[in-house]
């Protein structure tokens, strides 16, 4: 009886709410999936705020062909199975026209699988695992460079300026860290750099000394780390404590470009390099404006993740404007024909190597100088000259 009651209750509940999603015919709804809670909430927040800022501007300027654009945000909590459920809900229940967002690589993968299967276009703006655009999925488009291209600027800096012979690669055991380390190792092999230490670690650790002691022992020229912000801070602090002095420390973006990094690492963040995908002084129209507007509106810093989200919003609006109708295939076609400039850079989806529907952009190298993140490479775009070689004793005094 109880089981019957339960099932009946369920059925009626679902029946009632099954039809509860009518919407006004003149708003265009797009689903955005981000980690709003969970470990990656910080980044999810920057992206959400950027999406919202862009949305306000787009609608104030007349929306999409007169119709209001609406973003439905869903929280993937940083877990792929939740991301998957969120995507399903947005597609089948909310009947969105397309999907955007996608922060963590695992989550992005899961969403992409759902989108491709349901033939709904998905514009990825952060998920970086190369494989996401290597599946030949025609409904999946990516705005940001894949993780293998993050160290492009670093590679040229290494060959022209540093010329290291040995490197240590430390990475967190997540999709991002794992795939990033493999890609960087490939770059090292190409450049003739010998990888003397390659260690993964569980994120959230307290004590990294064991792994750092190994690095100190092997004394590599370059230490490359792929971490989110708290691990990055602890790694650098403990490296400073152990007095590890390679020629340079480089972060693989993510945690190393956030303002929380110097806040938590203090002196240890100084003169650390990082790969990055964007910087506010780049000569893309509106880049500096976006940065200033964001800081003024939300009283906090933004960086490349926010720019990705902001640009994605504008791409979505542009796509929907150009699409012949609201059918998924017309939207997909409009996406594939995208050719526009955004604050994040030019956006045009092409195929190269094994990838399809991938936007191709250069990447840059930044360095923490006197507590501020400065663009240092390529030289022509630098806001401050790079500091190298580095006298660690002076920096850490």
């Amino acid at each position: 009886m109880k089981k019957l009651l339960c099932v009946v209750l369920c059925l009626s509940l679902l029946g009632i709410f099954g039809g509860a999603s009518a919407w006004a015919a003149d708003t265009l709804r797009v689903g955005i999936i981000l980690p709003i809670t969970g470990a990656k909430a910080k980044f999810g927040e920057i992206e959400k705020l950027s999406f919202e800022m862009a949305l306000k501007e787009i609608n104030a300027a007349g929306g999409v062909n007169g119709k209001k654009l609406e973003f439905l945000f869903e929280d993937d909590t940083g877990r792929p199975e939740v991301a998957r459920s969120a995507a399903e809900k947005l597609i089948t229940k909310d009947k969105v026209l397309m999907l955007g967002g996608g922060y963590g690589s695992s989550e992005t993968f899961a969403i992409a699988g759902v989108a491709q299967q349901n033939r709904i276009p998905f514009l990825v703006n952060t998920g970086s695992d190369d494989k996401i655009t290597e599946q030949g999925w025609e409904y999946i488009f990516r705005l940001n460079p894949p993780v293998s291209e993050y160290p492009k600027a670093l590679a040229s800096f290494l060959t022209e300026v540093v010329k290291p012979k040995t490197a240590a690669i430390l990475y967190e055991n997540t999709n991002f860290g794992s795939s990033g380390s493999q890609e960087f190792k490939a770059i090292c092999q190409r450049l003739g750099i010998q990888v003397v230490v390659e260690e993964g670690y569980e994120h959230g650790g307290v004590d990294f000394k064991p792994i750092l002691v190994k690095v100190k022992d092997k004394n590599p020229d370059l230490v490359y780390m792929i971490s989110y912000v708290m691990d990055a801070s602890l790694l650098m602090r403990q490296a400073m404590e152990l007095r590890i002095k390679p020629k340079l420390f480089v972060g693989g973006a993510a945690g190393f470009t956030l303002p929380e990094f110097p806040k938590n690492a203090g002196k240890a963040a100084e003169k650390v390099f990082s790969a990055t995908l964007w910087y506010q002084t780049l000569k893309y129209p509106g880049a500096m404006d976006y940065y200033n507007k964001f800081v003024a509106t939300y009283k906090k810093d933004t960086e490349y993740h926010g720019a990705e989200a902001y640009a994605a919003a504008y791409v979505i609006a542009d796509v929907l404007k150009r699409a012949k109708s609201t059918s998924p295939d017309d939207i997909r076609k409009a996406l594939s024909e995208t050719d526009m400039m955004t604050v994040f850079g030019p956006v045009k989806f092409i195929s190269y190597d094994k990838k399809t529907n991938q936007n191709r952009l250069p990447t840059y190298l930044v360095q923490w100088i006197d507590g501020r993140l400065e663009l240092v490479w390529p030289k022509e775009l630098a806001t401050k000259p790079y500091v190298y070689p580095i006298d660690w004793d002076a920096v850490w005094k």
Partner: protein
Amino acid sequence: MAVFIQTVVAGILMGGIYALIGIGMTLIMGVMKIINLAHGQLMMVAMYITYVLYEYVHLDPYAALLITMPCLFVLGAVLQRYLLNPLIKVDSILPENQVLMTVGIGMVLTELARMIFHSDYKSVRPPYTSMSLYAGSIAFNLPMVIAFGIAVLLTIGLFLFLLKTDVGKSVRATAQNKEAALLLGVNAERITIFTYGLGAALVAAAGTLLLPIYYLFPDLGGAFTLKAFVITILGGLGSTVGAIVGGVVLGVSESLGATYISMALKDAVGMVIFLLVLIFLPGGLKRLTKI
């Protein structure tokens, strides 16, 4: 050679922190035979209190110890009195209800912390955070050395307390045989409330001392609870000295495992030791001594 020494040093210092976390649990498990799966979450609460005191009152964590420990004592006592003690009388199929209750408590504490403070990472950075003492090229992180010292002091204090004071003796009596203690006039219910509170206060000390060298987020409880178990089982239930020894053994094993096997498997080392001790040395290291 330097690699080996530094690794061992790092392990010992980490062991001090672990020991602090373990002391509280070994007391709770030893006395009340409760497996407290909310242990790490209690530590998390103490860390948030420390954080708030630092951010808004600019109180140094070492001073905050004098606030977090009593606060958690009260919290622990309340939890024991209202949520755990009643279970002793409940008739149910599975005796493991107490354990599951602590799971529920842990979940609620974590989510309340998340509601108030959100999921992003918080930290405190007093000036001494990265200071190190150096013996040659071997670095000794200062806050960890201090934490180690405090762990030893607390252990000695607890040891004397259990040995010499009346309350302490009542605690030991209740641990050894509850019925007999009741017969001898020990108010067992009050003692369990007191013990849980004391255990919580001890893990509060661990959290407050850990905060300057780590960081804070609502979900950190789980990992530390697991470590606490390993230490408790390793050292032997109810053995205060066992907790220190267990902590150091775990710390050093993890360190050596991380350096010589793989950093990624560091936590697995602890789990393997845990299993081996559970299976082959059921009383923990305590069995090898008389303390």
